[in-house]
């Protein structure tokens, strides 16, 4: 048996949505992270909790890309496919790299499963795999039942540990330790000793199976050359939650999170609800509107108030966000974007709520918009959104999306002491308090109920300059619209200078991105540069207001390409703001970009010139 060293591997786990694919994937991820690889993951599950068993619609997938080199994306075509049934194979085999490795449970290819996967009953998909693929067709179901035969669990319960058998086998193939998963199982099934025993045996049986079959080649992926420091693995939704908790700590405020369950944002609520011991107040509201308006109440009461949702929920919150804007109170609105419009593609990703974030309110109501670009970046984006909200007394929209929300990557987490303090303009006493008197940044001060002498009334009606009293006066309204707009535009004064991620400071092409496209663009531009194409990369975190130096950067390139997972929304904004022509690469398939899709577009633009 030989062990081959690899610098990078992409594995795709797939099975029925009841097969425990996400669990197997996340366990492989944790083990891989602790082994020191850089990695990126992408879970992809059906919208239905239990789609019809065995069908292609019910296939749940989890992809991980890991390596001894820097990893920017969950990988394009996988090197390895783990398929627990015929449907999982049917859906994912076409994506597998030519000559790749296939691990499959042959029990999942019986007549019934073939029929459910809409194969011809006479077809023989396993036998039909071309010879250059390396196929491990293992009767996992049978071997697993054999390993658990003396346990008193029913065979259905025994079969539930098939995922651990498959995972054990993959651990063997990639020379991984079982210890992380063993500890995890021991904690998870502490109160169910028989289930624990079944899972541990299945895991070991899978590993040992790999050890006993002959002529198998194993692989080793050495630890990556990562920047020195302490790391953990984190998903985007977890990072968003931690960013908000950190911002509350750094501003000396309590965190209030009002939310209504919605895919793919609910995990933020779950994560925050688990941190009550830090004083986090979570409120599962009766609807999206109560979620945002309860946050408005909490903000008025002096909390760092946050509401989180996804596209359809944003639509419902619109009026509330307008009120927060009009009141000029701090609030963060997290939109974990998913495929739209309407209910759209709840479990799939998209970047199509950008224009909604920028413009989706009645009246003149500009709101700062920040976009996170990777799972770990959700932490700093959430922290920054909270900072701007609190220091500039405004609602801020934080855009993440289903892809980075559920994906994970190693995160070199910051020391708490390295996070800058956040200073909300709280006023404790004032002989003549004027709620809408502003400082040089046009920011008003924040008098919190309970503070003696500062009693005042706020509302959604137009206000008189400084006093905040209701005013229907014509010139006052114009002045107020202008001052609120100016206040938001002045936020850009506090941005750091925009820095190119790579490429020359001027030339034929700039690839401009925002949000989750960062990794795919980075890989594409790296390849383009390696191939001698003079392409540069810039990625936007701040979408409203746009950075003041963006126009100068854009003007240094002959062309600008914006790849986005929508029908060209940032492109419209850039054309509108800078009058530059923009090439759009759109992808509206519910899936993130593959680097090669962007590279191809880059080549078509630069080589044709």
């Amino acid at each position: 048996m030989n062990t081959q060293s690899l610098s990078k591997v992409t594995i795709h786990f797939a099975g029925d949505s009841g097969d425990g694919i996400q669990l197997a994937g996340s366990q492989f991820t944790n083990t891989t992270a602790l082994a020191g690889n850089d990695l990126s993951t992408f879970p992809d599950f059906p919208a239905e909790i239990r789609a019809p068993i065995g069908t292609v619609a019910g296939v749940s997938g989890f992809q991980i890309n890991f390596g001894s080199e820097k990893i920017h994306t969950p990988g394009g075509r996988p090197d390895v496919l783990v398929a627990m049934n015929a449907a999982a194979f049917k859906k994912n085999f076409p994506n597998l790299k030519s000559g790749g490795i296939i691990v499959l449970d042959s029990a999942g290819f019986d007549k019934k499963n073939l029929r459910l996967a809409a194969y011809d009953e006479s077809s023989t998909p396993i036998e039909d795999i071309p010879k250059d693929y390396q196929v491990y067709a293992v009767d996992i179901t049978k071997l697993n039942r054999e390993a658990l035969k003396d346990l008193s669990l029913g065979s259905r319960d025994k079969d539930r540990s098939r995922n651990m058998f498959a995972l054990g086998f993959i651990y063997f193939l990639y020379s991984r330790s079982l210890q992380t998963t063993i500890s995890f199982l021991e904690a998870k099934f502490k109160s169910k000793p028989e289930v624990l025993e079944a899972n541990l045996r299945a895991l070991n049986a899978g590993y040992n199976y790999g050890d006993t079959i002959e002529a198998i080649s194993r692989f080793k992926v050495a630890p990556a050359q990562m920047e020195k420091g302490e790391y953990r693995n984190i998903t985007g939704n977890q990072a968003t939650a931690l960013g908000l908790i950190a911002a509350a700590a750094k501003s000396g405020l309590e965190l209030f999170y009002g939310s209504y369950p919605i895919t793919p944002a609910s995990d933020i609520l779950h994560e925050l609800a688990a941190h009550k011991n830090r004083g986090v107040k979570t409120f599962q509201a009766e609807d999206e509107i109560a979620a945002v308006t309860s946050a408005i109440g909490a903000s008025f009461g002096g909390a760092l108030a946050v509401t989180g949702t996804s596209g359809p929920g944003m639509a419902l919150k619109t009026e509330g966000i307008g009120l927060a804007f009009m009141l000029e109170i701090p609030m963060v609105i997290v939109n974990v974007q998913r495929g739209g419009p309407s209910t759209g593609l709840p479990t799939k990703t998209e970047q199509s709520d950008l224009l909604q974030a920028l413009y989706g309110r009645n009246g003149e109501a500009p709101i700062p918009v920040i976009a996170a670009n990777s799972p770990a970046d959700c932490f700093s984006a959430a922290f920054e959104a909270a900072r701007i909200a609190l220091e500039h007394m405004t609602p801020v929209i934080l855009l993440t999306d289903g892809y980075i929300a559920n994906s994970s990557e190693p995160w070199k987490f910051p020391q708490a002491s390295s996070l800058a303090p956040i200073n909300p303009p709280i006023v404790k006493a004032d002989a003549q308090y004027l709620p809408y008197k502003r400082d040089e940044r046009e920011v008003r001060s924040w008098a919190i109920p309970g503070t003696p002498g500062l009693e005042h009334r706020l509302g959604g009606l137009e206000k008189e300059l400084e006093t905040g009293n209701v005013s229907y006066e014509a010139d006052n309204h114009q002045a107020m619209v202008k001052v609120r707009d100016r206040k938001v535009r002045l936020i850009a004064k506090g941005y750091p200078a925009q820095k190119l991620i790579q490429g020359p400071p001027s030339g034929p092409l700039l690839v401009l991105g925002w949000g989750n496209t960062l990794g795919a663009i980075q890989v594409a531009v790296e390849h383009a540069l390696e191939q001698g194409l003079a392409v540069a990369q810039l990625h936007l975190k701040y979408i409203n207001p746009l950075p003041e130096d963006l126009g100068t950067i854009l003007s240094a390139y002959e062309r600008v390409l914006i790849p986005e997972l929508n029908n060209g929304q940032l492109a419209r904004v850039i054309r509108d703001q800078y009058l530059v022509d923009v090439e759009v690469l759109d992808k509206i398939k519910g899936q993130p970009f593959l680097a090669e899709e962007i590279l191809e577009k880059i080549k078509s633009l630069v080589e044709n010139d």
Partner: protein
Amino acid sequence: MTEPNSALFTAKEAASDQEVRWCPGCGDYSILKQMQSVIPGLGIKREDIVFISGIGCSSRFPYYMNTYGMHSIHGRAPAVASGLKMANPNLSVWVITGDGDGLSIGGNHLIHLLRRNVDLNVLLFNNEIYGLTKGQYSPTSEMGKRTKSSPMGSLDHPFNPLALALGADATFVARTIDRDPVHLRGVLETSNLHKGTSFIEIYQNCNVFNDGAFLSYSDKKQKGQHIILLEEGQPLVFDAGKKGIRLNGLKPEIVDLEEGFSANDLWIHDSRDATKAYILSRFFDDNFPRPFGVFYQEDRPCYEEQLIAQINHAKEIQGETDLDDLLRGKRSWTVD
């Protein structure tokens, strides 16, 4: 009840400097005046009082109180107030809403507030009409009501607000009326003492679009026969002591006290009895006099107290995680 001399500020200080802009003769003036006279005596500091309203005529109320206040958006005051109370349970929070704001566009928030039992006082000004939009029928307007939006008569069956509140398991349910200042002040004071959501329906005359809707409950000549004032432990008597209500099983009956019945036969008001409260709330047609006062009250833990208790419990058993430990999580590794 608190003695007037314990007032922390004066009624004059309770009023803001803003000019009140309801139509002359509007019932809202009376409610505002009673609130301004009651609130200084509740033993609550002015800075700890907050009025939250939605949209509608009644929702201008916070602008006229010299306390903290927010005039929010249509129907959402219960949710805004809930968030505020969770953020700072020390505040005395009053929700001002109307029949359109609270029962139509904001109906969902109202019922969820009541079941959660957040410690707020909800004052629902019911004038059975949309006033601010100039006279369309509301969810409490009677069927067949002719308005600009229902020229042939409204087809909507009206809500019975108190029955709705009881159905949502409200812990304090009362009714009062703008034209009876003494009763109104009494109900406001009692509601303030209740820990949990107090729901108070206030019949309020809209003299422009629905004048006289409650005349039979306020007019000196008529009201005796049409109202019952609920008093704890007292028999249900009306029409100047001439008539009463008795319970025949679960069926209420009007009895004549001048012809064979005495106070001993009558229903004794018990605001802790949920079944009786529900029967009382069904006194909603012309067959029975309309009850005023506290229909129902119960002690049930309020939402924000339990939220704080959970937080304290979590702190106790888990300790307050250091921010560094939180960021590090359970599994971290070091790259040298």
